[in-house]
């Protein structure tokens, strides 16, 4: 053994502490300097924008007839049988609902309604608050179309139920009671700008029957019919009314909006000598959820963008494993989890930035094409890029692209093989969509709940309200989960892949 005759060498460079920022800088340099990767990112942006625009140009509308808008500006349905009297100033209305049953040959819709309502006027779409009994959802208080609060679960088919609605200025309070003596409050709501004189009375209505026939390769949806009869007694109005008798109106008129002839028939009101009121009516008081989703229609290109993002996320990792470069990386930075974090951050940031550019431009182009193709206000209100739901969809789609890239990166760090990773991630994200069009509805919805494809819900521009029954058909762009919940599913997959990758990186020799 030689004895050192020299003093040991020390690096002349300053021992800078290796912070996370430096690691990000290193990974960013890696990404930037393989020319194909920024190029792929650019191609992805162009492809997304072009396909968003092309996809939109295929859609056109000749306008959907007259539309009704609620106080919040949203499209609504406001059709029901209304037995009413004007009420000036404060007051209250009380009634006992004794029955609610179907008046056509079909079974009753779960969201059929019988109850009391205070409405700004008899115009469709005017402000209102109502307390009602439903066949399947118990007692509800609903106001201004989009709001809904549950009361008790009482069913008027088994026992009559008392309802009360009081007005004090702009405040309306709903109550319910099983016996007419002990009352429980459901909710106190404020209808801003409610005039001094309003219409108050009984309501009866039901959503139309909606049937979906879905077989392989095709779906048919039939929509129509629906007629209910509500029976009421112990009707009492407190307050000042300019009319002494109850008048009946079909709010929205007897609109022939269905295939069956009785759809055009007016509703009926009977008053028995003993004070029993029987109202037969159709139509619903609810937000309108039919019609094309102009937001979602503008994001067709994102599906193509996903392919590029998967390839980028994968190659950013497997490119290093393939050539043993990963050992150089881990020699420079022995803290492997930090390397994983830096890689994830860099790929997430660049794909998000590119994705945001692509979705913002693609959305704007698609919107102008749609406007040109007949999707014009007021049926299709202008969507500002800086307001929800457009903002959420644009930013969310960019985040979706970015998360898919992160998912691919995580899977790549587990599998260490580009062929397998790309196939697995594309199959996970894209295939459930295709299969959901083909599978029977329950299986299709299950797929869109549990796979990363759920995240496409972030592109939905139509709000799906729980107080409206809808057949969530994947082919018409409906996702069973709400936008953020759907997005969370993809995020969970990405996090799981990263955790698995972290575990494997720590455990295995490089």
């Amino acid at each position, binding site marked *: 053994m030689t004895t050192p005759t020299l003093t040991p060498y020390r690096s002349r460079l300053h021992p800078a502490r290796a912070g996370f920022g430096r690691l990000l800088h290193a990974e960013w340099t890696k990404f930037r300097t393989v020319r194909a990767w920024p190029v792929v990112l650019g191609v992805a942006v162009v492809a997304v924008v072009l396909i968003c625009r092309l996809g*939109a140009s295929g859609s056109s509308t000749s306008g959907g007839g007259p539309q009704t808008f609620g106080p919040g500006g949203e499209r609504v349905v406001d059709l029901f049988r209304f037995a009413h009297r004007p009420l000036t100033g404060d007051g209250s209305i009380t009634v006992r609902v004794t029955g609610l049953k179907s008046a056509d040959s079909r079974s009753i819709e779960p969201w059929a309604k019988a109850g009391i309502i205070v409405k700004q006027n008899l115009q469709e779409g005017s402000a209102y608050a109502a307390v009602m009994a439903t066949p399947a959802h118990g007692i509800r208080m609903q106001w201004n179309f989009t709001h809904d609060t549950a009361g008790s679960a009482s069913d008027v088919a088994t026992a009559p139920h008392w309802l009360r609605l009081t007005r004090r200025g702009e405040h309306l309070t709903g109550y319910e009671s099983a016996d007419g003596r002990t009352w429980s409050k459901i909710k106190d709501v404020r209808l801003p700008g409610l005039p001094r004189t309003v219409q108050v009375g009984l309501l009866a209505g039901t959503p139309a029957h909606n049937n979906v026939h879905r077989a392989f*390769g095709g779906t048919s949806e039939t929509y129509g019919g629906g007629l209910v009869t509500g029976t009421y007694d112990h009707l009492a109005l407190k307050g000042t009314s300019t009319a002494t008798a109850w008048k009946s109106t079909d709010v929205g008129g007897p609109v022939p909006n269905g295939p069956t002839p009785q759809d055009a028939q007016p509703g009926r009101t009977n008053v028995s000598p003993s004070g029993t009121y029987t109202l037969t009516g159709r139509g619903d008081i609810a937000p309108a959820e039919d019609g094309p989703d102009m937001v979602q229609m503008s994001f067709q290109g994102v599906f193509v963008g996903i392919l590029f993002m998967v390839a980028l996320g994968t190659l950013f990792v497997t490119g290093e494993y393939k050539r043993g470069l990963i050992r150089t990386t881990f020699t420079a930075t022995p803290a492997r989890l930090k390397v994983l974090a830096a890689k994830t951050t860099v790929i997430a940031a660049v794909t998000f930035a590119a994705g945001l550019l692509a979705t913002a431009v693609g959305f704007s182009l698609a919107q102008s094409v749609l406007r040109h193709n007949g999707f014009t206000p007021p049926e299709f209100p202008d969507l500002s890029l800086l307001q929800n739901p457009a903002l959420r969809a644009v930013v969310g789609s960019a985040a979706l692209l970015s998360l898919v890239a992160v998912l691919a990166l995580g899977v790549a760090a587990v599998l260490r093989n580009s062929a397998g990773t790309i196939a697995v991630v594309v199959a996970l994200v*894209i*295939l459930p969509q295709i299969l959901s069009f083909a*599978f029977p509805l329950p*299986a299709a919805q299950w797929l869109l709940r549990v796979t990363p494809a759920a995240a496409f819900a972030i592109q939905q521009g139509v709000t799906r309200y729980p107080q409206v029954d809808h057949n969530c058909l994947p082919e018409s762009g409906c996702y069973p989960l709400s936008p953020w919940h759907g997005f969370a599913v993809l995020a969970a997959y990405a996090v799981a892949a990263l955790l698995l990758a972290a575990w494997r990186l720590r455990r295995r020799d490089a």
Partner: protein
Amino acid sequence: MRWLHAEWTKLRTLPSTWWLLASTVLLTVAVGAAAASSLTSGVCPSPDACHEDTVKLSLTGVWLGQATCLVLGVLSMGSEYGTGTVRTTLSAMPLRWRLLAAKAAALALLTAATGTVAITAALWTARLVLPVRGPTLRATIGSVLVLTLVALLGLALATLLRDTAAGITLGLGLLYVVPLLADLLGSPLWRHRLHRWTPMPAALSIQATRNLNHLPIAPWPGLGVLAAYAAGLLLAGGVAFRLRDA
């Protein structure tokens, strides 16, 4: 024949080949069984009152199985470029057209054999779950051919692009993203065109056993579309392979 033997040995000795083939069978059977069992009595009260195409439903797994077949096809050429083996191969078998033909033949034989196992097993499994009715012969043979043609498509893409990742990405785009766009497009005209003239939705019309006159494209012509894509790309790949330096 000797070249076919050589290519067969090359394909056979890659461990990924057997993994992919096993996954093809497993995924085709599992997805088919899952799809079949998703048919609840609400949708399908009895075999007679069932509007679903049960044969097609039991063969849903082909949607997933084709991905592994594509990867197999891409890897059969892509891995040669990735590792530089292609130079060794070409020095041993310098006639490039014959080499590509041998590769395609070995790949097609292997995929067709695996496809037959997968499709038969999928139908047999689905029969345990629900009464599969209708003429199954065309759907069975057709599905095997779909898997085989997809593998050849993968080979063609890899030959053309000389890169595994690019080949798989493009192939999956063709197999998955195009049909998805076709389903989501707003324009019925374009939807119809895409359903007819792109390989994936068109080829799978071979699985249909009901409502045949409602299909955008008839079963055999539909399969022909995929075959045309595979053959065309293979031809283009072959020309590029012949003209380019390795």
